[in-house]
């Protein structure tokens, strides 16, 4: 943001030599290091935190830790996956926490009519919800922040209406195989891993992913390039809604009932994970790998706080999470700025 008009008149020093990096960009060694720090930062921090935690108490680092970290958070990660796509286009989706809860209730309600319906109903409803939000953003020209904020309120309202203000609890039949989808650690983690792999392919290996990045980088240029900007944006909110619905369905399977109170504030956790993973909130750069690091990092920190600072409870978790997020976004902003200079 710093604009110094007086400097343009002064004689410029000879620019440092530039050579093509792996991406074909011309860059100086310094720029290359900054770019690497931006891309690999989350992974480095994650490894460092895990290594420090293991070194501090080697006997405690066990498979049960890993399974706690993976199993307890698996579904929530799907929200971060969808959010990565949305944020890459420069948008934001605040409705995912509500859609997550709505998906759980819909799954539990439909499960009495059969497991397939329990899977399909939340996916279809949440996809439609996301698509409407996407249409309002892409064709209505409305701010994503507000559209999805309305979505957050509306989806919660729909959820309350479905459950008679939370007084009706739908149970998943005890013998339905639907329950297995959420049971234990490895089934849900496997489902989430497959979806993340598909997300990675979509983002890194398809034209659609490139379009999303282009939209976030400069929407006007993307339009002039002839990219299907509006369609891509609708799809991105649809995708995010569908993933939130899927996460809700899995949570319904795990809990065995539709719980109306879950998911409050999860959109913020998802955004935090995506941002910590190095995806720029301004859009134009996002990686699925970074988001994986982001969600793992948040989960590991959460776990460590639970273990060592449990007497302070969730308050300590929040305080540390907030401070951590602040440090990460500050570091991102400073790296971004020093690269531009």
């Amino acid at each position: 943001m710093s604009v110094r008009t007086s400097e343009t008149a002064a004689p410029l020093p000879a620019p440092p030599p530039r050579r093509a990096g792996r991406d074909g960009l011309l860059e100086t060694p310094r720029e290359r290091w900054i770019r690497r720090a931006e891309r690999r930062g989350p992974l480095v921090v994650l490894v460092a935190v895990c290594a420090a935690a293991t070194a501090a108490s080697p006997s405690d680092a066990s498979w049960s830790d890993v399974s706690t970290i993976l199993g307890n958070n698996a579904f929530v990660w799907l929200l971060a996956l969808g959010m990565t796509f949305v944020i890459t286009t420069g948008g934001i989706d605040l409705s995912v926490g509500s859609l997550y809860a709505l998906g759980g209730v819909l799954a539990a309600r439909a499960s009495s009519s059969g497991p397939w319906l329990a899977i399909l109903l939340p996916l279809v409803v949440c996809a439609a919800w996301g698509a409407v939000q996407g249409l309002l953003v892409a064709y209505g020209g409305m701010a994503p922040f507000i559209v999805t904020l309305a979505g957050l309120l509306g989806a919660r309202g729909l959820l309350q209406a479905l459950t008679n203000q939370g007084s009706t609890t739908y149970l998943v039949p005890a013998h339905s195989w639907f329950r297995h989808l959420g049971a234990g650690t490895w089934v849900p983690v496997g489902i989430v891993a497959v979806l993340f792999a598909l997300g990675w392919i979509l983002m890194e290996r398809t034209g659609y992913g490139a379009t999303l990045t282009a939209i976030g980088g400069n929407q006007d240029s993307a339009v002039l390039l002839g990219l299907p900007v509006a369609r891509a944006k609708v799809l991105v909110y649809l995708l995010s809604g569908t993933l939130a619905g899927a996460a809700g369905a899995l949570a319904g399977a795990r809990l065995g009932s539709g719980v109306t109170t879950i998911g409050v504030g999860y959109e913020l956790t998802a955004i935090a994970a995506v941002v910590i993973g190095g995806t720029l909130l301004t859009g134009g750069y996002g990686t699925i790998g970074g988001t994986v690091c982001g969600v793992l990092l948040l989960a590991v920190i959460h776990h460590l706080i639970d273990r060592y600072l449990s007497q302070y409870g969730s308050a300590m978790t929040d305080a540390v999470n907030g401070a951590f997020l602040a440090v990460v976004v500050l570091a991102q902003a400073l790296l971004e700025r020093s690269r531009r200079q």
Partner: protein
Amino acid sequence: MTAAVIEPADGAGARERILDLAQRYGVYAALAVLIAVATALDSDFMSVSNWRVQLFQAAPIVLVALGMALVIGTEGVDLSVGATIALAASIIPLYIGYGPVPAIALALLLGAAAGLVGGAMVAFAGVQPIVATLSLMIGLRGVAELMNGAAAKPVADATILDLGERNLAGVPLMAWIALAATGVVAYTVRRTTFGRQLVAIGDNKRASLLAGLPVRRVLVTVYVLSGVLAALAGVLIVGHGAEADPANQGLNMELSAITAVVVGGTPLSGGRVRVLGTVAGALFMQLASAVLIQHNAPTSTTQIVEAVLICLAVYVSRERGTR
């Protein structure tokens, strides 16, 4: 502003003009219609006691929304106000032993400090307002709970309870405070250099920089003001409820405040602040939910109606024309 200068004669121009008028005066019309409908449905609606209750409910939201309007005017957003309310509230029982004035002063100071941190991240580090204030929002509530313990603590100080419960000339003291704050903010936006700079920055930050405006200072000040107003709202909420509850007070207040600002006609894209519209927007949202609740509508209906209203307001106030 610009739309009033260029008035094409074709139908599209007329449509633009209607939308422009709707954006500017729609909230007042909506408020009038709402009050008329509510009075028709329920004769008690216009009673003094009902209005007193509504003003007690609306005053803290108005304060928070005023600060939010300033922030949104600079093309920012402040998600940390709800957590700032909790922070300011939780300091009150800790320091009430030193008397009400030091406790309130400390609460306001904490609000200013919270705003300063957010504002510095936005202005000096160039962090996006949403993220900067999001990290504060997560962190500050944690800090508030750490300071006070997660459970609610009673506050019995007479001065603070007076702030939240007393009526002055038949009108809640809280409403007077909100009215005074409205006056100060309206004056600041319309008549002071700071107000003009704020609007200019929201309109075009780069041009403001090139014109030599103190962009960073103005941005930081705006977030500090938002923090102080939120802290003031926190003090009033403590007075009204006679307790400090860091886990629940101010929850979702940032969303209500943003809604009030947007419904009031301030565009999210900055460059314009509608102070009176913001107050009308806050009153409208408060009265709308009150009317629904009084007629035994379930909370789900209230939430869905609120969502539809937000969408309508944003559709009317969205950026129009070529970009």
